[in-house]
């Protein structure tokens, strides 16, 4: 396990700066929440982290070394929409196996199959057949398959981008519980991106608040949400629905 570190990372699209000189650290074994509104640049930062977009400047390092651009990725990502993040034509087992690094355990078909079973078990889908197509699964089950696929890559850090916002409310609880459980059992590091402060508060031990491409406040969850310093953080907190029920 090693530390994920952003130093002065910027991403520009033409004249538009989506991410503006962001510096942030995800310490080993912790879940760091990244909150912000749409257009704040949080998803762009996620995509830059896993190499889907190229940072214009700055460095992203893992355990002090720059991220490899080819071969096995030490970072994995779970996406927002579980309906589009799994190939509808591929069995969930194949989707998971595709992300596995090639080594002695996964060299044989048998080895891969056992690894798929183990991962499905881990995300509480042990009774689901690896041959099932995503179409047969509910949104929550798909999101758990997506988590299993991310884990299959044996990542040092997982980037979770709004993973519960496309789910029905009755289902998102199970996914959030799973995230916490995996973090506690496997000691996963995670950058957990969400617009929902209550969700971030529930899973993250540290929080960074992003606005217009910049991180305006960062600290432990208790401090940032308890004694916010930046006016924008306070504004966000004030806006959480349910603060003044009738």
């Amino acid at each position, binding site marked *: 396990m090693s530390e994920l570190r952003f130093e002065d990372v910027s991403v520009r699209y033409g004249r538009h700066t989506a991410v503006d000189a962001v510096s942030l650290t995800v310490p080993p074994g912790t879940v760091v929440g990244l909150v912000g*509104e*749409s257009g704040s640049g949080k998803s762009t930062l996620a995509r830059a982290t896993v*190499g*889907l977009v190229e940072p214009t400047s700055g460095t992203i390092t893992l355990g002090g070394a720059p991220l490899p651009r*080819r*071969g*096995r*990725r030490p970072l*994995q*990502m779970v*996406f927002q929409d579980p309906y*589009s*993040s*799994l*190939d*509808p*034509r591929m069995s969930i087992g194949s*989707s998971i196996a*595709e*992300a596995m*690094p090639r080594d002695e355990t996964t060299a044989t078909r048998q080895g891969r199959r056992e690894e798929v079973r183990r991962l499905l078990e881990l995300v*509480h889908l*042990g009774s*689901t057949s690896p041959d099932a*197509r*995503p*179409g047969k699964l509910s*949104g929550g089950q798909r999101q758990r398959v*997506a988590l299993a*696929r991310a884990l299959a*890559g044996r990542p040092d850090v997982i980037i979770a981008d709004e993973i519960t916002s496309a789910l*029905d*409310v*009755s*289902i*998102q*609880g*199970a996914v*959030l*519980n*799973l995230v916490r*459980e995996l973090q506690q059992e496997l000691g996963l590091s995670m950058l957990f991106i969400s*617009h*929902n*402060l*209550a*969700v971030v*508060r*529930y899973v993250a031990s540290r929080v960074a608040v992003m606005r217009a491409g910049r991180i305006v406040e960062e600290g432990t969850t208790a401090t940032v*949400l308890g004694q916010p310093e930046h006016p924008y953080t306070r504004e*966000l*907190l*004030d*806006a*959480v*629905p*349910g*603060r*003044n029920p*009738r």
Partner: protein
Amino acid sequence: MSAPTSRARAWRGVLTTPLGATAAVLLALVLAVAVLGPVLWTQSADAVDTGNILGAPSGEHWAGTDNLGRDIVARVLVAGRLSILLAFAAIGIAIGVGLLLGSAPFLLGNGRAARLVSAGVNVAVAFPGLLLALFFAVVFGVGATGAVLAIGLAGAPTFARLTQTLVAGLAGREYVAAARVAGVGRLRILVRHVLPNLREPLVVNATIGAGSSLLAFAGLSFLGLGVQSPSYDWGRLLYDGVGSLYVNPAAALAPGLAVLVAGLAFNLFGEAVAKGLGVTELTGPRVRRPATKAAPEPDEQRDHSEGRPSADVVLEVRDLKVSFAGRDGQLRPVRGVSFSVHRGEALGVVGESGSGKSLTALAVTRLLGDDATVEAERLRLLGQDLLAEATPAQRRLLGTSLAMVFQDPMSSFNPTRRIGRQLAEVGTEHQGMTRAEAMARAVDRLDAVRVSDAADRVRQYPHEFSGGMRQRAMIGMGLMGSPSLIVADEPTTALDVTVQQQVLDLLSAIRDADDLALVLISHDVTVVGEVCDRVLVMYAGRIVEDLATADLATAAQHPYTRALVAAVPDMATDVSEPLATIPGRPVGPADTPAGCAYADRCPLADVRCRSEEPPLERTAAGGRVACWHPGGEPDVVLAGPDLRRVER
């Protein structure tokens, strides 16, 4: 679409439609002629008869003879093979080159080379195929080979563009991004994830393309630029036949007809496949059983209306049902909903997707399309029956007394009209205002919903507004009249949290200022809890609980309501405890079970729950609940170490 069996079913479906069957028969016929034609009729097609040059149709020669006395019909039948082979060759080139050019940008990454390729394709695709074909015909020379290359290369940009669009669409899918993050190479992604999805569109377009290149070939040959004597295809026969149109029209019409039939066979087949594969995706799921015997509603509407004069009732709904004609029977997503809203009251409606909450809103406001059947025992706005035939008076009542706010403020404004005009329309339509008066009112209303610089803003287009401002303008539009009721369907779901708060505050303020009634529909219990006095909880097309908002957290009776509240973390949730979860998934209108729709997910469910639907009955607290075990223990299914039970 995923399982091979469903694909097989889709293909069978294509062949069983009248259009598909006709096209398939035509296509088989054309292909049979191509295979057998030269075998069977070459002899008579080549038999020169100098005694019967340019003969008229007769019993022996159905379409007459050509300038060497050869039988036209036989020649048309023989020419089929060459015509079709040439068309196939051309479409093969078009698809091959097209696929290569179309997937190149993806393989090249998004670098400069990729952009150059796609820019080139974009320029080429704007030029009509025939023009490109003429260009290539000059380069490759007049003749069959030249024409194949010409038509093939001329068709390539279209296929390249198609492939490019499809590939770009698929490349944007998250599963492709996920594969890239997993370290899968671009070529492998193309082969495993992208190309399989191109199969159907490519089959469809290749079929139609084969038809088009057949026709294009006929066109080139007709101009004398294609197949040259002594070879002949249909276009060449047509070219020869037109020369003697006045002597023997059949010599031109017979090959013309052949071209037409073959072209139609390919095109119709392609369209039938396209339609068949598309339509199968859209058909609704089957209804598993006959319609439920709906539990009787309590016949009185006394809920929460104690002591209020009935004149206060703004909206009254009793036993509302909405159904759609599915492919295999009626679907009924709203199954008997009764409630009323009073002046000054804010009523929330919560439920998950598919619970029927939005359909209920659209049904009571008479905005459902006419593919839906709306039935109700009573549906009244301000005492006026909305189920009656629409009259101008009813339109005016709805237009001025009812304001609607929809979920997506981006798509809910007409993108090609200025905001002011869209607001002013209400004034000129229902309030007898002149354009100028209505525009002044629009400025005033935008001002009232705190859109800054309203006088300038009315001249702007919707896309020049931010999301929150658009939603406020939408509310302002509702305020053009003098509404008694605002129905807001997920008004903040598409908005950011800080903006959401402003919109909710605005709705509350409007209600307080003028004692309006508000119906707020949301999937988010906390949003409803913040604005509303009373909440209806919907599940599978029915109201399962009706309670005061204050009771949501503490005194909810229905296990679903309690689970819903507990499943959503808020800023006070105990982070050391696992969140409550609800096993299974919401039921849709196609698979509503016989008893209580929630029984399969409910920890309290017993035999009765699974067989008999509980009626919505009054509770001691003054609400209503539809449950055989209201308030029963255990109050929620806690998923701790036993998370596995989520997976039943």
